[in-house]
């Protein structure tokens, strides 16, 4: 356990080195957040609500998902794919600890950094420009924390699957970009999936991607409470377990293919 803690800590510290890059990304994320919120407010102003989101809820939704971009690496994440292409993966594989858990710990460290230095500042900008609807009870905050950990886990397992496909194809990144674009939409990043036409909404809800953006944002907004909240978190947890198992399976298959060239 101590090992994973250290790995996560190092991943966190590694990000600290990129202060200017983070600041630039923050400004860009905040600007897009502002535009997205303005569009939703203009749509909803004085017209009640869509699917239970009034103007303030929809606007908060867009800021929360905007804050999550880097935390759950919505724009893509290719650290493992890079090591597979360069061959560095061999040195990671020969380390005396489980490969999947090693990367999961690293990703928690990375995500923790972006929660503190990207997500929080963005929510702050949202608060100052529009005024967000924050969680009101300690229970909601606890549920949010759990939901975030699960969202990061689901997103990690999914990204792991995309990355590890690089063992079979040189086009993993191309496929990955395509997949990321689709999940941005089906995960409820662009607009809440509850706004979709019913058939598309049901499809989106049946897929794991809502666990990455839609669910944590809805937990933030306290749209789900009591039993519904428990069921939402449970679904997230089930997807996390299922996708991690898939990641593990795919990794085992990939291991049969790795041939280390003596160098």
């Amino acid at each position, binding site marked *: 356990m101590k090992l994973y803690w250290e790995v996560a800590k190092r991943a966190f510290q590694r990000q600290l080195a990129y202060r200017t890059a983070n600041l630039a990304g923050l400004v860009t994320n905040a600007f897009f957040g502002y535009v997205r919120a303005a*569009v939703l407010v203009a749509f909803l102003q004085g017209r009640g609500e869509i*699917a239970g989101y009034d103007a303030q809820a929809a606007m908060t939704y867009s800021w929360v998902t905007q804050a999550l971009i880097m935390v759950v690496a919505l724009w893509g994440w290719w650290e493992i794919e890079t090591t597979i292409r360069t061959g560095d993966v061999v040195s990671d594989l020969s380390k005396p600890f489980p490969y999947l858990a090693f990367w999961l710990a690293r990703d928690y460290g990375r995500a923790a950094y972006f929660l503190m230095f990207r997500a929080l500042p963005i929510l702050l900008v949202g608060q100052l420009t529009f005024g967000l609807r924050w969680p009101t009870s300690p229970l909601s905050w606890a549920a949010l924390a759990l939901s975030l950990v699960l969202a990061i886990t689901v997103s990690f397992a999914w990204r792991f699957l995309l990355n590890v496909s690089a063992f079979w194809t040189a086009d993993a990144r*191309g496929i990955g*970009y395509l997949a990321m674009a689709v999940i*941005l*939409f089906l995960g409820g990043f*662009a*607009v809440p999936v509850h706004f979709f036409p019913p058939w598309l909404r049901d499809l989106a809800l049946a897929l794991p991607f809502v666990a990455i953006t839609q669910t944590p944002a809805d937990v933030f907004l306290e749209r789900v409470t009591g039993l519904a909240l428990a069921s939402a978190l449970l679904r997230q947890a089930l997807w996390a377990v299922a996708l991690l198992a898939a990641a593990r399976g795919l990794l085992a298959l990939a291991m049969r293919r790795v041939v280390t060239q003596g160098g």
Partner: protein
Amino acid sequence: MHTPRTLFVLYWRLIGAQVRSQMQYKVSFLLNLIGAFMATIIDFLAVAVLFTRIPHLAGWSLGEVALLYGMSSVSFALAEMLSAALDTFDTYIAHGTFDRVLSRPLGAFFQVLTEDFRLRRLGRLTQGTLVLWLALTYLDLRWSPDKAVVLVVALASGFVIYSSILVMGAVLCFWTVQGKEATNIFTYGGDFMTSYPLEIYSDWLRHFVTFIVPLAFVNYYPALYLLDRTDPFGLPAWVRLLSPLVAILLALLAWAAWTLGVRRYQSTGS
């Protein structure tokens, strides 16, 4: 001395070489193309979803917003495709590659333009064209020759405006290698922002994209003309036709900045 004709031939030869090399990896190329298409069309799909629930955005219909969106997208995609090397201009300076450019017997700007050309950016252009085409078929524009001219001139002006901003962003790299990020707000962010009617933003932001970084002339003002709308902010009617003038002024400014930057350039010496 190079005549425009030889430069033109040379341009296509250099770009052709880039295109051929990128077509070597056909599957990668196709995936990249579709990926770029999907990533950019999502913004429009999101708007379309909202319109299924509420028919108007600040008094604009889906077709009208699609017109704004398509015009901005096409202009920006063209600029982005032709000036890919400006995107990574900071590495040119940092790695000293720009020295090589200066030592060759051709204009520096011409060379930089031909250094990099990304065919996969056709993905953005395709989705922009698609949305623009949808807007034009869906809207009842009451076409007249002047409107056709305004549309074509607006797209060309938009291309020039975005290109000029990209050039000025690259020029920043002559002073600071980290200047590049700042332009993303005006290009990617500007394209995103001006895809929606400017009425929905606060006054300072609207003034900023009208008078300081004049992105409103890429699509908003020409679209007002095409849609027979008057400016909700009370500017005179002829302002809607100012796009080409704004584009020329901005291009001159970008050119001056580029010349100044090149003159000031000192190699990193690495």
